[in-house]
C-alpha cells in the first residue's frame, strides 16, 4: 500500500465533507507533528544515545530502565534509533511531495495554458504514469537507479506528480474561465500576467492541503520501499528498514519491530489529521 491517503483529497473534492471537528485529537496531532519536527531537526537533543552505538554484549534487551524501547540485535538503543529515524523518514516524505508538487504544478499549468497540443501531450504522459500502480512504478525506477534514499524519493515523486498536474490543470481551467479573469483579459491584461496574478494563487489553496496529506502517504511509501530492502545504507536508522530487521527477531524481541511501526503510524496519522483539518477550513471558503 503506498498512497492510501492520496485518494482522500480527490474524493473529498468531489463530495463536500460535513465538518468533523475533533478538537482534542487535533491538538494532540499538532503536538506530535511538532515533536517529530523537533526530533528530525535536533535528534541529539532527544535521543539518549548515538543511533549507531553498537555493543553486542547488550543485544536484544527488553524495554526497561536503561533502554525505554529496548535494544536491537546490535545492542543499539531502539529509542535513539527511532528518534534519529525521524529525519530520513520525514525528509523522504517532504522531499518526494515537494518534488512532485513543483513538477506537477508546472506540468499542470503547461497543460492548462499551453494550448491544446501541450495539454494532450502532458496529460497523455500523465496517463502513462498513472497506468502503472504506484509501488510497481517505484520499483521500476529503483531497478534503473539502484537502491538508496534519493532514488526512493524520485520514485515516489514520479508517481504522485500526476495527481498535482491534474489538480492544477483543473483548477487553472476553472479560474481561467471565471468571470473575473475573463474581465481582466478583456481589460487588456497580458495572459502571462493573468496567470501569475490570478490563476496561480487561486489554484494554490487546494494544493497546500493536498500536499500536507500527501506527505504522510509518501512517508508510508518510502518506508515500504525501505522495508523491501531499497532504503538507505546501513547503519542509517530508518523506520522501514528497522522494521524489516525487527521482523527477523519478532519471536524473541517484539520491540524491535513494534516501536518503529508505531512511529510511522503515529507520524502519518498526525500529519494526515492536521492536513484534513486544513482541508476543512479551506473548503469553508470559496476557491
Amino acid at each position, binding site marked *: *500500500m*503506498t*498512497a*492510501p*491517503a*492520496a*485518494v*482522500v483529497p*480527490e*474524493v*473529498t473534492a*468531489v*463530495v463536500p*465533507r*460535513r465538518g*468533523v471537528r*475533533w478538537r482534542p*485529537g487535533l491538538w494532540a496531532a499538532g503536538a506530535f507533528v511538532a515533536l517529530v519536527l523537533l526530533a528530525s531537526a535536533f535528534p541529539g537533543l532527544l535521543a539518549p544515545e548515538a543511533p549507531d552505538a553498537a555493543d553486542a554484549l547488550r543485544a536484544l534487551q527488553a524495554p526497561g530502565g536503561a533502554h525505554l524501547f529496548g535494544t536491537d540485535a546490535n545492542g543499539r538503543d531502539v529509542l535513539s534509533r527511532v528518534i534519529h529515524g525521524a529525519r530520513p523518514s520525514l525528509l523522504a516524505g517532504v522531499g518526494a511531495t515537494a518534488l512532485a508538487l513543483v513538477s506537477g504544478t508546472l506540468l499542470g499549468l503547461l497543460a492548462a495554458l499551453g494550448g491544446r497540443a501541450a495539454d494532450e501531450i502532458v496529460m*497523455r*504522459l500523465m*496517463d*502513462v504514469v*498513472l*497506468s*502503472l*500502480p*504506484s*509501488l*510497481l512504478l517505484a*520499483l*521500476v*525506477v*529503483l*531497478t*534503473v537507479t539502484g537502491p538508496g534514499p534519493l532514488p526512493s524519493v524520485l520514485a515516489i515523486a514520479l508517481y504522485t506528480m500526476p495527481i498535482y498536474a491534474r489538480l492544477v490543470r483543473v483548477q487553472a481551467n476553472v479560474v481561467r474561465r471565471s468571470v473575473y479573469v475573463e474581465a481582466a483579459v478583456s481589460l487588456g491584461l497580458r495572459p502571462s500576467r493573468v496567470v501569475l496574478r490570478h490563476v496561480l494563487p487561486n489554484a494554490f489553496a487546494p494544493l497546500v492541503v493536498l500536499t500536507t496529506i500527501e506527505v*504522510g502517504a509518501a512517508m*508510508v511509501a518510502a*518506508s*515500504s520501499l525501505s*522495508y*523491501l*530492502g531499497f532504503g538507505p545504507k546501513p547503519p542509517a536508522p530508518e523506520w*522501514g528498514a528497522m*522494521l524489516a530487521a525487527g*521482523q527477523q527477531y*519478532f*519471536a524473541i524481541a*517484539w520491540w524491535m*519491530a*513494534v516501536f518503529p*511501526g508505531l512511529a*510511522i*503510524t*503515529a507520524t*502519518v*496519522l498526525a500529519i*494526515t*489529521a492536521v492536513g*484534513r483539518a486544513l482541508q476543512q477550513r479551506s473548503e469553508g471558503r470559496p476557491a
Partner: protein
Amino acid sequence: MAETAPPAVKAPVRSHRRPSRITGRAARRAAVRLATSLLVFWGALTASFFALQAIPGSTVDALLGNNDASMEVRQQIISDYGLDRPLHAQYLTYVGRALLGDLGRSYQLDQPVTGAIGAAIVPSLQLTAAGLALGLAVATALALATAHRRRAVRSISSGVELVGVSVPVFWAAILLLTLFSFRLGWFPAVGGDSVAALVLPAVAIAIPVTAVLTQVMREGLERALDEPFVLTARARGMTDAAVRLRHALRHALLPVVTLVGWLFGALLGGIVVTEKVFGRPGLGRLVVDAVVTKDLPVVLGVVICTAALYIVINIALDLFYPVIDPRLRGVS
C-alpha cells in the same frame, strides 16, 4: 412499489426506448478511448524498455553471476536472448512479439515470462479479490451503521478510518501474522492454495481499502439520505434500516466506482509487501525478486500486463458507468 420507486430505478426502463443512440455514442467514445489507451500503453512499454536498458553492466554477467560458466555457455546465452543484436532491433522484436503475446524468456527463472506471470497472477488475483471483497463488505457495513448518526459515532469512525489509512500495510501484516497464526494458531500462514491461508493477508491489504471506502460511502449515503425520495419513503412508513439498505445504498456505491483506478493501485501495492511478509507466491514477490536480480524481461512483462489491465478496467468503466448511473446518459 413501482410507482414510488426513485428515478434512479426507473431509468433503465427508459433506456430501452432508444438503445441505438446510446450504443452509437458509447461505441464512438469507446473507439476514441481505445485509441488513446493504446497510445498510453505503447508509451508505458517504450519508456520502460529504454529505461531498463540504461542499467550499467552486462546482461550476460547478470545472467551468470561469477559462476564458472564456460565461454561456450556465455555464447549460447547471448544468442538465446538475442543480446548481440543492436538495441533498436531488440526493441522492435520485443514490441512485435509482445503484440503476439510473447514477452520473452525470464533471465532467471528458466521459463517464459508469460508463464511466470501466469503462474504468479493466480494467487495474487485470489488475494486481491479477497481483500477487495472484504474491504467492500466491511466498508458497506460501517458506512450504513454510521451515516447520519450522532457526532460521537462519526468522530470515532473517522478516527478509526484515519488510523486505517496511516498504518503501513507491512507492519499490520507482521502483527496479524504473529498474533493470529503463530501465537493463537487460528489461521495457517502457509499454503498458497488454501482458503484459510488467505484470510490474514487479505485482512492486511483490506485495512487501508476499508478505511478509504467507508469514508467515501458514508458521504454518499449521507447525501442520498438527504434526497427527497428518502423523505417519501420514510413518509410511507419504511424503517430506517430499510431506507438505508433499499434506497440510499445504491447511491453510496456510485462514487466507489470512480475509485477503481486507485483501488487497483492500492491493492497491487498492498500485495507486493504482503506477499513478502507472508512469503506467499505471487506477482508482488515475482516483481520484487526480478527487480533485485535485474530480471528485465520479467519487470517489463509485469509492467505491460498491469498497464494493460488498468487500461482495460478503465475502458470497461467508461462503457458501463452510464449503465450504472442513468443520470449520466444525457451527458455526452
